[in-house]
């Protein structure tokens, strides 16, 4: 065995090793909970999401404004935020937001629900999996716009259609992620349930589903903007009252500022939904150790 110097010159008594909890701000690799006021911390970090959103939005807008002015980008390609703020038809935008938000929520719930249910079926039975997974893939493989004729045949052209289209866009990430989560279970936990003679349903309820929650929340994070996209796409295909329609009509009428106002509004809707998911995760999955 290689020898190492048995004694190193002992370092001079140093500048007091103060390793206080000061740098414990949850930023880097620190893992333990900050004892006092952890709840407050959690609340604060819950608030941090929207706050950062706002800050970033502000910075992005500033960069945008300056960029447009400096490069002299024509307003029909990309208007400056100040121009959007002053000349857009905000009345129309707020009208559109109302109807879009409802559809987005509907699509979000329906898509996640469908993805989740499909993941459950697929993970529960290899036979169902071999039948359903190709189907899911096929559904995913077809651009929704191309499906439009069939969807309109099946669901007509009402609000239902918007929700279906959004759900179609949302469900696949959820399916994949929930499948991942359902399988990210320790072997021993399954063995435990096996010894306890649990029915598969119980194993799912008590072990696999809770274990899948972090992945599911990731899926919902992806779903938040995807649902908005879906609704906008649907409104593009079939019209309606929402932001997607407004984007198209504004674009056609060359009301570029209104179009961008609508786009910004849709981004804000997506951002809010996203923050909602993050907040819910913090509250519902304290054990998951997400920082």
């Amino acid at each position, binding site marked *: 065995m290689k020898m190492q110097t048995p004694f190193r010159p002992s370092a001079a008594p140093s500048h007091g090793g103060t390793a206080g909890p000061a740098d414990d701000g949850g*930023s880097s690799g620190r893992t333990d909970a900050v004892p006092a006021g952890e709840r407050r911390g959690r609340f604060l970090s819950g608030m941090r999401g929207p706050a*950062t959103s706002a800050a*970033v*939005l502000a*910075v*992005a807008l500033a960069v945008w404004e300056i960029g447009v002015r400096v490069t002299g980008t024509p307003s*029909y*390609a*990309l208007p400056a935020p100040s121009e959007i703020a002053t000349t857009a038809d905000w009345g129309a935008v707020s009208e559109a937001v109302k109807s879009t938000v409802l559809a987005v929520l509907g699509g979000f719930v329906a898509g996640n629900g469908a993805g989740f249910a499909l993941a459950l079926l697929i*993970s529960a039975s*290899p*036979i169902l*999996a*071999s*039948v359903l*997974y*190709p189907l899911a*893939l*096929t559904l*995913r*493989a077809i*651009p929704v*716009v*191309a499906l439009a004729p*069939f969807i309109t045949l099946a669901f007509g052209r009402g609000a239902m259609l918007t929700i279906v289209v959004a759900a179609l866009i949302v469900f696949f*990430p959820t399916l*994949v*992620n929930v*499948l*991942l*989560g359902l*399988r*990210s*279970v*320790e*072997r021993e936990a*399954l*063995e435990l349930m096996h010894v306890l003679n649990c029915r598969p349903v119980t194993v799912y309820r008590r072990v696999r589903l809770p*274990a899948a929650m*972090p*992945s599911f*929340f*990731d899926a919902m994070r*992806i779903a*938040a*903007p*995807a649902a908005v*996209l879906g609704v*906008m796409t649907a409104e593009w295909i079939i019209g309606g009252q929402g932001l*997607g329609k407004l*984007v198209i009509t504004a*674009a056609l009428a060359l009301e570029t500022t209104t179009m961008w106002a*609508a786009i910004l509004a849709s981004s804000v*809707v*997506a*951002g809010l939904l996203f923050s909602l998911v993050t907040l819910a995760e913090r509250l519902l999955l304290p054990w*998951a*150790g*997400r*920082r």
Partner: protein
Amino acid sequence: MSRNAVAAPGTLGRRTPNRLASALTATTVYCALLAAWELYGRAEYRPGGVLPPPSQILGVLWNGRAGYWSNTLTTVGEAAAGFTGGVALAVVLALVMDRLPLIGDGVYRLSLMIYSIPVVALAPALVAWLGLGFTSKAAVALLAAFFPVLVNLTGALRSTDRRVRELGEVLNTGWVGSLRFLRLPYALPAFTASLKIAAPAAFIAAMIAEWVGADQGLGLALLYAMFGYQMPELWAALVLSSAVTGLLAAAFGWIARIATPWHASIDAGSERR
């Protein structure tokens, strides 16, 4: 038991014999469906109808094979470029977010907002900046691919097992070392899953991007078929796009299995335990 928890192949489920059975079932079901469709199509399909028989769709594909082949290749090329760029961008962003949480958080949210802008709306700006060629298609594919990867990767990086992180600290791996030796491997299952999401997304995005204006591509073929109301051709394009995404999914499932043999999560349906 973190999301990265490990379940090695045991003998718990004893499902191995089912693999053949499930493959058989799937084949049977789909053959039956196809047969029914074929029969229905032959009996009911009139030009102008919605459901041409599969044999006719195959005929269309076969007759136009040269064109479909080159169109598919074009779109696959655009999607591949966008996908690669998107994944790279997402990985870089995820690392930035990991390293600089505050800035990272902002970038995350900005990404989210950009991701939620529909292609329709982005088209004029994209075209103005990138023109109507390959680049703008790849850019749209990139936008579609990067977000799922970003979300999954940051999620996984944020929830590495506490014990593993402590190991990294004691080994004094530093940030890079902890990523390389500990956290990225732990994030690998979530990452490969996100690739399964991103790959079809990129492909579809490239197809849609071709609608903005293009000379070649599967999306364009689809548009022609729709616009010219040619249902067999429409179906042919859909079959092709499904085939491509199916292959992509299979490929990434396979990659996931190769890359994370220790992880229980393997491709759809088949729990190898």
